[in-house]
């Protein structure tokens, strides 16, 4: 654990930034990753400059512990009369001097919020302002970001939950519970596959996050799964491509271009024997998260390349790039890769609304943007096993773990049926949005990108930080599980008796939730 505090002098532009520089030195010493460092620096510097610009004095506190960085900046300043207004981009009350130095663009608070996993602001007129920002570190960062997207809808929508339990059985990692008060997402277990969103007929699960859609800058590139083009019920990909041109995108590229490039690299590695077989293609970030959390012995089998959406984000360093995330896991990795004004991560709902708003009549004959065809053939290559759908993927990974996949050199897995194009955020039925017309147009030049960060086992949900206590808890879980009926009926709100036993031992549920135990009591 590290803690630090630093006094900030209001109005002193010479020493401004020193608190953040000190924080950087602390974080560098404990070896936080580049993405976390970047977010911490932006959030801390913007908060520090708020004090320098607006307040008499202030203090920055930082605490690094339990996989997260907590920043708190409190000032003795005038306070903020309207916080909602202050959080809007472009609104500022900075002095003329600050503006001349390039501050006061009204992006400070939005920048802090954008780079925080948790953000909070308290203000009192005439007394001061306190900003809190939490940034999740390393292994926690992506699962938190994925869970952030797989949110529960507002309380009114949660009340729609019919307790049908379909979501808890659809979740491949047991990350959901249905309580009397409504469902719960357990962030440490969520891999961001959106299976719950697809399964819930009551639309209880909402999708948060994603950058708001705005008119793209000139020359912008949009990268999306082809399923977005074919899944929108508006008359086919041509009309969607025409509408995207009308919205101002200069070019549309399909994610499948980078998927094909990653597959080709996996086959090459398998052929030369440079990796443990079967090579698992990292085309689906949710599968990677699943392997890291549930099948850690297969981590050496995951190909060392960025996922297609991350690689697409790296492809155009000089252009504005919009990535359409088909699921929370894609959102999480794309967001972790880069947070710049040149790169925005869009949600399917936001882009769908924009497209529907500019849809021209079919007979209008407006200009249609061209697509590029992914390299290679869509069919599977010899030695490749391509599997989609959570249930099948779980079985195949279990088989791979026990070495029961003879003759398979490349495993290409997607948690969504039919791959990204079958994401429940894009379509009601994965087969309706299966990619079409992918062979049209110029051949793609998309390339796989080697990743620098190694894969690592995810902690999941720790029973206890102390190993001895955790082992004792495990014993109690086993003992309790043996007294349960093993029906895995879900009536307790957990997807299996084993997970219910864990919930009881860890205090997340009371044993009275099991109707069988109540009957036999």
């Amino acid at each position, binding site marked *: 654990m590290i803690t630090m505090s630093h006094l900030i002098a209001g109005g002193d*532009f*010479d020493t*401004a*930034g020193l608190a*953040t*520089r000190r924080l*950087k030195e602390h974080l560098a010493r404990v070896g936080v990753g*580049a993405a976390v460092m*970047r977010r911490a*620096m*932006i959030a801390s*510097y*913007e908060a520090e*400059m708020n004090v320098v610009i607006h307040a008499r004095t202030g203090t920055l506190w930082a605490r690094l512990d339990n996989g997260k960085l907590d920043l708190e900046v409190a000032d003795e300043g005038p306070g903020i009369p309207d916080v909602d207004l202050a959080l809007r981009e472009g609104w500022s009350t900075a002095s003329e001097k600050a503006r001349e*130095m*390039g*501050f006061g*663009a009204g*992006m*400070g608070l939005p*920048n802090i919020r*954008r780079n925080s996993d948790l953000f909070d602001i308290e203000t009192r007129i005439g007394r001061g302002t306190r900003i809190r920002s939490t940034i999740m570190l390393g292994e926690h960062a992506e699962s938190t970001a994925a869970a952030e997207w797989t949110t529960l809808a507002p309380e009114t929508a949660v009340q729609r939950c019919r307790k049908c339990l379909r979501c808890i059985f659809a979740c491949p990692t047991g990350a959901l519970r249905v309580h009397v008060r409504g469902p719960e997402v357990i962030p440490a277990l969520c891999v961001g596959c959106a299976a719950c969103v697809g399964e819930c007929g009551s639309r209880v699960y909402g999708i948060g996050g994603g950058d708001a859609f705005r008119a793209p800058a000139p020359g912008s590139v949009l990268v999306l799964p082809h399923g977005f083009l074919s899944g929108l019920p508006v008359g086919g990909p041509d009309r969607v491509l025409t509408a995207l041109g009308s919205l101002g995108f200069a070019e549309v590229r399909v994610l499948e271009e980078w998927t094909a490039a990653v597959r080709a690299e996996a086959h090459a590695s398998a052929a030369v024997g440079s990796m443990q077989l079967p090579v698992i293609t990292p085309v689906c970030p949710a599968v990677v998260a699943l392997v890291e959390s549930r099948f850690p012995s297969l981590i050496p089998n995951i190909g060392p390349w960025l996922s297609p959406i991350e690689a697409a984000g790296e492809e155009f*360093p*000089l252009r504005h790039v919009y990535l359409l995330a088909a699921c929370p896991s894609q959102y999480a990795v794309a967001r972790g890769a*880069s*947070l*710049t*004004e*040149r790169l925005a991560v869009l949600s399917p709902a936001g882009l769908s609304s924009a497209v529907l708003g500019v849809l021209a009549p079919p007979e209008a004959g407006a200009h249609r943007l061209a697509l590029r065809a992914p390299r290679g053939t869509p069919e599977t290559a010899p030695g490749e096993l391509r599997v989609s759908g959570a249930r099948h993927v779980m079985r195949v990974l279990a088989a791979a773990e026990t070495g029961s996949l003879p003759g398979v050199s490349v495993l290409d897995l997607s948690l969504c049926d039919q791959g990204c194009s079958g994401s429940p955020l894009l379509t009601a039925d994965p087969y309706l949005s299966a990619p079409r017309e992918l062979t049209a147009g110029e051949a793609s030049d998309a390339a796989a990108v080697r990743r620098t960060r190694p894969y690592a086992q995810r902690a999941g949900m720790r029973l206890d930080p102390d190993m001895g206590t955790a082992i004792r808890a495990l014993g109690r879980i086993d003992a309790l599980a043996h007294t349960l009926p093993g029906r895995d009926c879900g009536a307790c709100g957990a997807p299996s008796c084993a997970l219910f036993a864990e919930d009881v031992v860890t205090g997340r549920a009371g044993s009275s939730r099991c109707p069988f135990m109540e009957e036999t009591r």
Partner: protein
Amino acid sequence: MNLSDLAAKINARLIPPSIEGKTEVKTIHAADTMSSLIANASPDTLLVTSLNNSQLIRVAELMGAPGLCLVGGAQPSPELIARAREAGAAILISPRGLEETRSLLEACLSGASQVRA
């Protein structure tokens, strides 16, 4: 592309850092607000700006940016140069305005075979 090559291609004056730092540039970001500069800075990004004050160096230092490009022939103060040296950041001084400098740098980085500076 190396910072010295980039400076030569756009006819910019280069004030190198005293310590040999990372001088490879993959992308640029041009802006005249601090928030935009810090939000888009990275260890591969040359920051191009019409601003001219010592907080620019603080931003480059915090984000690990290899350097700054001042535009319009702006002369950095001795304090700015000293801070840049201390932070290991280079300073380029372009005789052209922000937009023109940005276009030239982007052309260089996108691999245009002929860049007219």
